[in-house]
């Protein structure tokens, strides 16, 4: 096989993986922008999405088209409860205590998933078959197209929500200056809750659309969550296009790294990029520098 086709294959695989990172990354950004919290439990929403769907399919024999929306709904409810029970009661909401609470929440959710279901890996059927599609010598699966398509739709919806709806605008106001937002009559606490709900739903959907390719188990959330966070950092914690690009860049770099350099150090690539961006361009790859927030 010639190098050109090989490169194309790396690129396509990378884009498919990157789309997932992007979806998870946007979940991070939405919460961060509304609240200033990095939600370490974001990866667990992804895990829950996949696991709940598997459970609905296997134990309740629901068809796929019914299981998916129901699973998203259930995980959204988990996101709602998570904000109500863990974030809101926090008396001293310092960054450190927020980090610790969300880490605790992620461990708890993972443990509960293990107890409620099992420690096994499960697979989900593909949405539309497994016959590979050939593109100039390289191949993709129909599921990859689903991933790219759903990501695209979600991001457009997201963009529309934040620029054209009252709630979306209110959430943006909270991210700029919560006190000022409260003064003009925005219920900041409701917006915080709202951001958790949206993120949980997006995470769940990400978890569902990847499960046919990657399979799912109670402990998949950790690494996926971290990669999603790397994507968000590359995009400067934006909840729009920059984070999507961040995810895609990360996916492609990983895939190229694994193919051309060393697959053992593949995971290191994401974190080295994370560190470099944090050190050199904390505003993200595409953002303009802003003055230090004290």
């Amino acid at each position, binding site marked *: 096989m010639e190098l050109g086709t090989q490169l194309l294959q790396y690129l396509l695989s990378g884009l498919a993986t990157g789309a997932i990172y992007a979806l998870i990354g946007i979940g991070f950004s939405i919460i961060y922008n509304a609240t200033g919290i990095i939600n370490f439990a974001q990866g667990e929403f992804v895990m829950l999405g996949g696991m709940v769907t598997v459970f609905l399919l296997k134990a309740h024999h629901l068809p796929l088209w019914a299981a998916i929306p129901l699973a998203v709904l259930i995980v959204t409810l988990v996101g709602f409860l998570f904000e109500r029970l863990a974030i809101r009661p926090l008396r001293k909401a310092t960054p450190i205590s927020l980090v*610790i609470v969300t*880490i*605790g*929440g992620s*461990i*708890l959710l*993972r443990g509960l998933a293990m*107890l409620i279901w099992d420690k096994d890996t499960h697979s989900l059927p593909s949405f539309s078959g497994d016959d590979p599609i050939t593109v100039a010598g390289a191949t993709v699966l129909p599921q990859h197209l689903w991933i790219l398509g759903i990501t695209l739709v979600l991001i457009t919806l997201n963009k529309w929500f934040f620029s054209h709806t009252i709630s979306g605008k209110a959430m943006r106001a909270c991210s700029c200056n919560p006190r000022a937002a409260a003064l003009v009559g925005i219920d900041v606490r409701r917006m915080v809750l709202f951001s958790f709900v949206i993120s949980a739903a997006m995470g769940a959907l990400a978890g569902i659309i990847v499960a046919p390719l990657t399979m799912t188990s109670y402990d998949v959330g950790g690494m996926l969550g971290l990669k999603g966070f790397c994507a968000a950092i590359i995009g400067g914690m934006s909840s729009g296009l920059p984070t999507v690009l961040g995810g895609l860049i990360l996916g492609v770099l990983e895939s190229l790294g694994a193919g051309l350099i060393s697959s*053992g150090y593949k995971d290191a690539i994401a974190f080295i990029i994370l*560190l470099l961006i944090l050190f050199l361009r904390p505003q993200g790859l595409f953002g303009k520098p802003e003055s230090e927030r004290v």
Partner: protein
Amino acid sequence: MGGAKELLKYGLFAATILLAPYLFSGSYLLNVLVFAGINTLLAVALNLLLGYAGQISLGHAAFFGLGAYASAILTTTYDWNPWTAMAVAALTVGALAFAIGFPVLKLKGHYLAMATLGLGIIIQIVFNEWVDMTDGPSGFSGIPNLTLGPLTFDSDRMNYYLVWIFVLGCVFFSLNLANSRIGRACRAIHDAEVAARVVGVNARLLKVQIFALSAMICALAGSLYAHVMTFIAPSSFGFTVSVELLTMVVIGGLGSIYGSFLGALLLTLLPEFLSVMHDYEIVFYGGLLMVMTIFMPDGLVRVMPALCRRLPSLRRAKEDADA
């Protein structure tokens, strides 16, 4: 250390530690206490950073691992004297932390948490992948026990004293540090960094120094761990371990040295008594971390005395009611 009361407290602490093996001789609990000691060292180290300087780290297990691997490789592959290796390991890790401390500690809050987490993961990947040096994921075996003159630290009792003497030294040092000029400056940074900078505290350098010191203590704990276990594997130095350390510090109370000891002791011993929990352990950890942060942000150390003060009055109230 300030005042006779503090000294007395430390003396009692040291005496309890040194006498404890006589209560547990011949029991496996002594073996668990050896690891509780190592965890205490780690928790105190993290607390210096988190509680005093107010800087979070989610990658401290990596420094622990660096110490362990450095000692293992130097003594086994290169036949160094274990004590020399331990000192070299601690100093090198300290220097390394000092160097990376400058860019890392420029970050704040969540960004700092993520950067240290990323650092920890990168280092663990190196343990896994640098097979020629570390023997990779299957682990490094055949590390010698420590010796000192005629003594060989190969029994639980010997290891207990080895580890806990280090802990006593570290606790003494940390208590002094807390009450020194550096400690006060640290608390100033913690409470209001800008104000501290205004009154002339070199906040940045101080944070980096504490970071390096903290990493050094972790490396020391790593060396001890390697020689006690005689086998190490990358899985012992991952993110979960960093989170466990964080839990110990949070449970004990940020900024309290004895609190870290209590947190480490509790979290090391608890699973032994709750071994029936099996599968519930992970849920328990997560729940504990959340409940403690939400309801007792100051940790056990500050809550327990209050509870103890209230207990007698409660008892009296109950007696009155019974009568």
